[in-house]
């Protein structure tokens, strides 16, 4: 595992800041089927899947903190939950390295669910004594569906933003292995002919 380059750090900061601004200035004001999309868990999930658990965790913490600051919420709530989301997504990448095209959808939905439940739990732990209403559950479910639909484009966009700065891109790693010999059956054929 190599240390993140300054270029990657700058891009992550840009993605995080842009994501929070777009979330608060645009997405949060755009109700879809009575609920809003939530970019934060999707961004954190994408960073976790692309950069690993450490970067995912740090990014989650940072985005959560920024979101708490901007929304004037209790500091630390979103950061704690998103930290877990980013770390989990990163661990998934490190342990399983899933390659399916639809992986971001499933992981995005799971991240949204985890964020929603975790945030609600922390709010209740902090003393919100109102009972859980059906409206809250319905909204959580609606956000889950919307986020699942948005997960793939968000993941693609984040990957495009970080392109070239990722130090250990699994796809690039595989590509490099094929083109530098060793793993490629074509290169093996060339060696046999020689």
């Amino acid at each position, binding site marked *: *595992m190599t240390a993140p380059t300054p270029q990657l750090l700058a891009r992550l900061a840009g993605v995080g800041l842009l994501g929070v*601004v*777009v979330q*608060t*200035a*645009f997405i949060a*004001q*755009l*109700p*879809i089927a009575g609920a809003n999309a939530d970019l934060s868990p999707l961004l954190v999930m994408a960073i976790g899947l692309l950069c690993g*658990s*450490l970067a995912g*965790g*740090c990014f989650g*913490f940072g985005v*959560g*903190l920024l979101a*708490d*600051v*901007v929304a*004037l919420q*209790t*500091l*630390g*709530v979103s*950061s*704690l939950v998103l*930290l877990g989301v980013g*770390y989990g997504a990163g661990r998934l990448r490190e342990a399983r390295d899933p390659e399916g095209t639809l992986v971001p959808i499933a992981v995005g939905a799971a991240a949204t669910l985890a964020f929603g439940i975790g945030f609600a739990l*922390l709010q209740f732990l*902090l003393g919100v004594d109102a009972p859980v209403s059906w409206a809250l559950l319905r909204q959580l479910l609606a956000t889950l569906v919307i986020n699942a639909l948005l997960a793939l484009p968000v993941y693609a966009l984040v990957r495009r933003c970080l392109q070239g700065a990722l130090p250990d891109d699994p796809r690039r790693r595989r590509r490099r292995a094929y083109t530098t010999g060793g793993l490629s059956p074509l290169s093996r054929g060339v060696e046999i002919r020689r």
Partner: protein
Amino acid sequence: MYDKTVRRRRAVLGLLVACSLILLTAYFGESGGGALHGVQRGTSEVLNPIQEGASRALKPVRDLFGWFGDTIDAKGQVEQLRRERDRLRSEVLTNEIRKADYDRLSAMVELDGALGLEDKGLKTGRVIVQSATVWYATVRVDKGSDDGVRVGQPVINEKALIGRVTEVFGGAAQVTLITDTTMKVPARAGRRGEFGIVEPASAGNPNDLIMKFTEPDAGIRIGDRVATRGTEPDDRAASLYPVGLPIGRVTRIENEGTDTEEIHLRPYADMRSLDFVQIITDPRGGER
């Protein structure tokens, strides 16, 4: 190397979790003017212009999305709103009918009070059949002999005299209107209460009655009220109509001052829209 990486990762994770918890605890524990709140406000103030700019820049996009959303929502609501519109339309209609009924009945009660008809055995009924021709001659009401209705009893609505009962059934009665050519009503008009007989001016015109047999110098003027005469002490037979039931207002006078003077009047009651009526079942009640 692997152990070092894992240790490092876990250490960072632990550190961040600890940071979060410390932040959370400190923020939650401090007052509104605490350091963390101050930092949060300061950061928000710095970010506010950025958010405002972004919000303004993205407004057209937001509006576009909103337009799509509103359009889809509106399409979904069309059917529901149509149903609601139909229901409300029906409710409004019912309420209007009820209000009209209420107004008529109120006016009727007021008229009864003004004319002192409360002790004359009033039976309030509803017009169930109206003559479908242009003659506006008869109506049928839902009160009959079972309710004490007899032939000859006068009938009024909320405005004035409209006719008298000419046929009676168990639960209904036929009323011949004062616009029918067979009807003649003894009446008085003018300041001196000049006598005359009111009858239809022409068949099929519910807005024109004529008062005949008035004295040429009776002094009746346009606009004078015409009401029923009632029974005078020296009359040989009692009139069917109690005294003072309003009939109409003088609209014009033909051959004024001659023996063939004809006083035209317009009835107060609109014979084309009769709904509630009252049958005076005891016209001489209170006089005995």
